[in-house]
């Protein structure tokens, strides 16, 4: 059994920020991660992090309040406003802190941090490091973790969590290099495991983003919030769905269809290409669906007019991506793009202090749902979310430990039971000789989600998806992983994660079916209007014997009365 006061699951930005906070407060903490922390998906964030620093010449009037309002409006009023106020209020401090720790931000000529325009924002508010902002922030936080000597257990997948009488007890993790389980025992735990994008076939997410942390919490009985809100990023590379940053449009890139029209004129004349992501993604998908896309089904993102110098200086990484993966140099040719799954607004339900309803259990970053993004996250707010709430979770866990926490009395016995269940499951996976191949059902699930629970949704398709998922769930009882050998066994970890993916897909789809309105990223063709009277509320899902049960909770509104969103 491995013991630390605070266990942090996930080594991306949120997890590392939590660890740095707890460790610098003198607490014993450790990070458990599926991959080396620098391989976490935070690394792939490109465009930037929002903070109203007012550094840009045309951004001098920006303020925390304006950032707060833009975020709430962008969320289509489902964000909890007290939490958004905290996030935006902390933004300048957090960005300065990362700069003091060495983050190499791009600069304006006067030496201050450069800021670029981003979707749904009234000012150039997005601080950036060319188009590799996630990369530099993750490296910077990892550097701080190395400096503080934070212990990392890498290449471990957490497969289950024990909760007893409302208290966190411990975790069971599969060590990927030995195929053995390890018990992790702690007084507090922070989940920072990222999103569930890989439940979808077409996603910008890293292959590791299976939502495993959210699923582990769900299976331990923790409330899961707003899972039906799934962000589709407007500009993903045709063919591979690799992200092409919103910063490309922030720098002046334009979208055009097969006729060469800048079609955003018809969808969001005020903000054009820099409308919020849900609106731009629907516009692109509509162009493609109505036959105005280019052959194969995509539209063009044109950067040519920015010129070689600006592209090389501000967007070098997406140029490399376009060249490496699509044989397309954006200096000479428009980039073929289309929308794909990108971000998980929903997740483990927390309050504005990153606390879940379980004592000693916290969650932060994309795996959590505070909610600060509501139904649609603004670009540049996810990096901010990870660092602000990672820090808050670290503080919260430290505070919890110093307080009079109560541990479940029979912790060791509970964890031994949990381990036994995991061992039995493992044995079944390793010895089963006949069944349904894992790859087959997994691909079927992903296809179903992309085709039927995508950008545009409607009752018939959602119902089809629900029955498909139920069918797959029953097939998964005979999951076959094939012949592996001892030593590194990644396939075994995939099998454990797959069960969780099925659960999450079920919650997303059933939640989407029940929500008979359109709001932000959730668009129902059969209910195209937002319905505040019935649906200005969060969806809360919990595990029961017969699948998820749903209830709804109030949205916290402080100063901004819901209004119709216009861009």
């Amino acid at each position, binding site marked *: 059994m491995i013991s630390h006061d605070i266990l942090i699951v996930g080594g991306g930005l949120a997890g590392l920020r939590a660890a740095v906070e707890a460790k610098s407060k003198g607490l014993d903490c450790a990070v458990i991660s599926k*991959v*080396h922390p*620098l*391989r*976490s*998906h935070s*690394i*792939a964030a490109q465009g930037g992090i929002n903070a109203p*620093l007012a550094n840009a010449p045309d951004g001098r009037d920006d303020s925390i309040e304006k950032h707060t309002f833009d975020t709430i409006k962008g969320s289509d009023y489902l964000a909890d406003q007290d939490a958004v106020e905290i996030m935006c209020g902390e933004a300048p401090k957090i*960005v*300065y802190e990362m*700069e*003091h*720790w*060495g983050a*190499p*931000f*791009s*600069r*304006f*000529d*006067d*030496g*201050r*941090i450069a800021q670029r325009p981003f979707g749904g924002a009234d000012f150039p508010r997005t601080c950036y*490091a060319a188009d*590799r902002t996630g*990369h*530099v922030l993750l490296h*910077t936080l990892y*550097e*701080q973790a*190395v*400096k503080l000597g934070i212990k990392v257990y890498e290449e471990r997948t957490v497969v289950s969590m024990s909760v007893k009488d409302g208290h966190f007890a411990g975790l069971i993790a599969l060590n990927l*290099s030995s195929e053995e389980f390890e018990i992790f025992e702690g007084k507090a735990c922070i989940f920072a495991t990222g999103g569930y994008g890989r439940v979808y076939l077409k996603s910008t997410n*890293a*292959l*590791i983003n299976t939502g495993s942390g959210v699923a582990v919490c769900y299976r331990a009985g923790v409330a899961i919030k707003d899972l039906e809100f799934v962000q589709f990023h407007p500009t993903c590379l045709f*063919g*591979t769905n*690799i*992200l092409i940053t919103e910063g490309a449009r922030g720098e002046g890139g334009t979208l055009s269809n097969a006729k060469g029209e800048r079609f955003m004129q018809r969808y969001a004349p005020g903000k054009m290409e820099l409308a919020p992501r849900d609106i731009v993604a629907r516009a692109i998908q509509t162009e493609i669906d109505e036959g105005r896309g280019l052959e194969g089904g995509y539209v063009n993102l044109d950067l040519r007019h920015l010129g070689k110098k600006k592209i090389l200086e501000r967007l070098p*990484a997406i140029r*490399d*991506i376009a060249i*490496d*993966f699509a044989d397309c140099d954006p200096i000479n040719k428009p980039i073929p793009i289309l929308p794909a799954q990108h971000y998980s607004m929903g997740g483990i339900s927390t309050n504005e202090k990153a606390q879940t309803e379980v004592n000693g259990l916290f969650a932060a970053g994309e795996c959590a749902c505070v909610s600060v993004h509501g139904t649609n996250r603004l670009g540049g707010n996810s990096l901010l979310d990870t660092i602000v709430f990672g820090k808050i979770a670290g503080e919260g866990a430290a505070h919890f430990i110093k307080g009079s926490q109560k541990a479940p009395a029979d912790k060791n016995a509970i964890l031994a039971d949990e381990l036994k269940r995991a061992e039995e499951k493992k044995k079944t996976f390793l010895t089963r000789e006949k069944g349904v191949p894992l*790859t087959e059902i997994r691909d079927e699930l992903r296809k179903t989600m992309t085709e039927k629970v995508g950008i545009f949704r409607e009752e018939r398709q959602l119902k089809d998806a629900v029955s498909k998922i139920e069918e797959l769930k029953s097939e998964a009882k005979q999951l076959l*992983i*094939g*012949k*592996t*050998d*001892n*030593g*590194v*066994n*990644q*396939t075994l970890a995939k099998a454990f994660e797959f069960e969780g993916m099925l659960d999450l897909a079920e919650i997303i789809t059933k939640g989407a079916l029940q929500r008979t309105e359109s709001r932000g990223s959730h668009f129902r063709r059969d209910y195209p209007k937002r319905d505040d009277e019935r649906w200005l509320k969060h969806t809360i899902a919990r595990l029961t014997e017969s699948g998820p049960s749903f209830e709804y909770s109030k949205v916290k509104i402080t100063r901004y009365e819901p209004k119709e969103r216009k861009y």
Partner: protein
Amino acid sequence: MAPYIFKILRFNPKADPMPYFQEYNVELEPSDSVLEGILKIQDEIDPSLAFRYSCRGAVCGSCAVVINGKFNLACRSLVKNVKTEEIVLEPLPNLEIVKDLIVDLQPFWKAYEKIRPYLIPKVIPEKENLVSPKEERAIDNFINCILCACCYGSCPVVTRDEKYLGPAALAKLFRFAGDIRDKGHTDVLDEIDIESGTWGCDTVFKCVDACPKKVRPTDGIEALRRKTVLRKSKRLIGVK
């Protein structure tokens, strides 16, 4: 779809006496990456095959591997660009094999930690430090490093001297020593003023060739040497 043969070095130290090559026939689109080929093998043919992967977009540095003798990330090598129907995959050299294409990166991370890979700030201002675009550009190339260890695997000095810090760690040291906001990492410069540190490099640019992110570690190492010599000469004439 077109047929490809993946010839992959297999080795499970827990079971195999020696590494060996195993061939797999895979149908792939020419625009698929080598990583997609490996994933397809793991998914459909041989679930026991082991390799690291994560972002599949050439930023996380997990899938560094040797493809037909050349260092690259498996995700950014499209099979059509490999230009042979037989694709030979080997793990990074200079590191022990954990299993198949997975190597033990501990020596690489130890070298990285040794150079104190974090900013040692001169001051902590109220807002941000002011950095001119020119000062920003001085270290810009080294910021691109994703620590994939291609350079470490390619370096002949690492092969010869296992104590040598290797290209990535030294380039990272220059990233800090050359950062206008940093005190200069002078203690580390003094500590590694030895053959297995600043002076080990043969300047044969293998690392520059191997880097999938266009980082030029050799340039960083040369800059460290200039800094070290300058510090010594200043000391000789009594300048602090």
